[in-house]
């Protein structure tokens, strides 16, 4: 015969309750302190780190996309700027060339003018000189023809000046 303990099937035995309380309390408190707390915190940490990593990866991906679009925008802008700068440079160059040309033309004109003026002056001088010489010569010729009549007097000189003036007035 087995030593069946009390009518244990339908009546909860006080001794079993006592041991169950004791054993389960110990089981619960020891595990709560030394098992569940570290295990659950570790699982939670892991989950948070996974969540964080995923979020970081997602953020990095978005950043990449943004950076790429930024880069493209920057490149586009740079290209535009380059175009503008090149255009400006071209304009400036053309302007400079035009200016230089203008200046050169003006200078040349000026020089030509000056040269012309100089030539005119020289020509006038030369002409007046020639006239003078011609007059002197004609006077000499005339005096030779006339003989010594008009010789070396102040009147001769005055007469030459008078003729030259008349000639100059006429030529003008």
């Amino acid at each position, binding site marked *: *015969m*087995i*030593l*069946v*303990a*009390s*009518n*244990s*099937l*339908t*009546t*909860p*035995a*006080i*001794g*079993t*309750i*006592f*041991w*169950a*309380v004791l*054993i*389960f309390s*110990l*089981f*619960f408190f*020891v*595990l*709560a302190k*030394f*098992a*569940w*707390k*570290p*295990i*659950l915190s*570790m*699982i939670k*940490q*892991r989950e948070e*780190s996974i969540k964080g990593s995923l979020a970081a990866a997602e953020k990095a991906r978005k950043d990449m996309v943004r950076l790429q679009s930024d880069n493209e925008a920057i490149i586009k802008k740079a290209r535009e700027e380059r175009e503008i700068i090149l255009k400006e440079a071209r304009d400036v160059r053309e302007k400079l060339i035009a200016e230089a040309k203008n200046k050169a033309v003006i200078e040349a004109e000026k020089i030509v003018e000056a040269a012309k003026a100089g030539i005119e002056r020289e020509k006038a001088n030369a002409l007046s000189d020639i006239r003078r010489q011609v007059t002197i010569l004609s006077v000499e010729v005339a005096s030779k023809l006339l003989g010594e009549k008009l010789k070396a007097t102040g009147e001769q000189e005055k007469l030459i000046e008078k003729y030259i003036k008349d000639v100059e007035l006429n030529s003008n």
Partner: protein
Amino acid sequence: MKNGKVSYLFFTFLLLLLQIPLAGQKSHHSPEAEDKEFNASEFIIEHISDSHEWHLFTKKNGDHVSIYLPVILYSKETGLHFFSSKQLAHGHEHKGFRLETEGDYAGKIVAVDESGQILEDKIPLDFSMTKTVIGMLAAALIGLWLFLALSRSYKKTGISHPKGIQSFLEPIICFIRDDVVIPNIGYEKHEKFMPYLLSVFFFILINNLMGLIPYPPPFGANVTGNLAVTMTLALFTFFIIQINGNKHYWRDIFATPGVPFWLLPIMIPVELIGMISKPFALTVRLFANITAGHIIVMSLLALIFIFKSILVAPVSIFFVIFMDCLELLVAFLQAYVFTLLSAVFISLAVSEEHH
């Protein structure tokens, strides 16, 4: 394949009908054993009941070989007593105590006087470490070892991926957390109740599974099919509910909103019954499910002895294996249900909004 199985079963049933007696069965039995009619209900009750000894096997001459468990008694008059249950075997008296086998005190240790008369006013309190207690203790130690080892392994692996035992236990822990506790109690408060609910889940689960393994000790004790054990676990849930119950919970019981005050004398007892019926439901559900499973398995095995034919054995074993598979499911299911209901009852007591 399938045909072969069917014909095998048919053959077995055919032989079963013929009831071929167990070869040499009668000649080997002692006269008393032969006379003694096999009592299936006694056979079953013995296996699912608590006991002061752990039966190992029975010799051919009918002697039982058992582990005798410690008896601890407290009597108001004589104080604490501590001795082996071997002293009480076969109806022996020891220190004025006797283990009754029949009558009003069947199964109880009673105090007796010199003439062997039961002293009804001196029944000692029995704190013996019975089969259930030893089984429960073993389950608790296995659980402690398992989860302390798990905790250590978490310290080692840190937050890297689960390894070894973690990959087996972590999904269960996460299942309890994500599908049982958080949906009921809510994320804000779940951390407070996780340790208890995990403890109760694994305590029940380990005991259920150990109860399914028939042999050797400490396996095979019907721990979660013991009313005292399930009641204790339910009372833990009960006290956790009462301690953590917020003002909504108590107002619902003692001043149910929307109920006229003259109805309160009816409502308060109703609410109190509701309060007590929760742990009662937990107690009975676990106890009945596990005990029923054990009874069915034992009944199927008893068939062999009822028919006194070894040819019933394959059929019995087939059905026992089937039942054990079912019991394996039940072991998980009842641990889950107990935890789930505990979580639901706790959530009713701690939720802020009104239902």
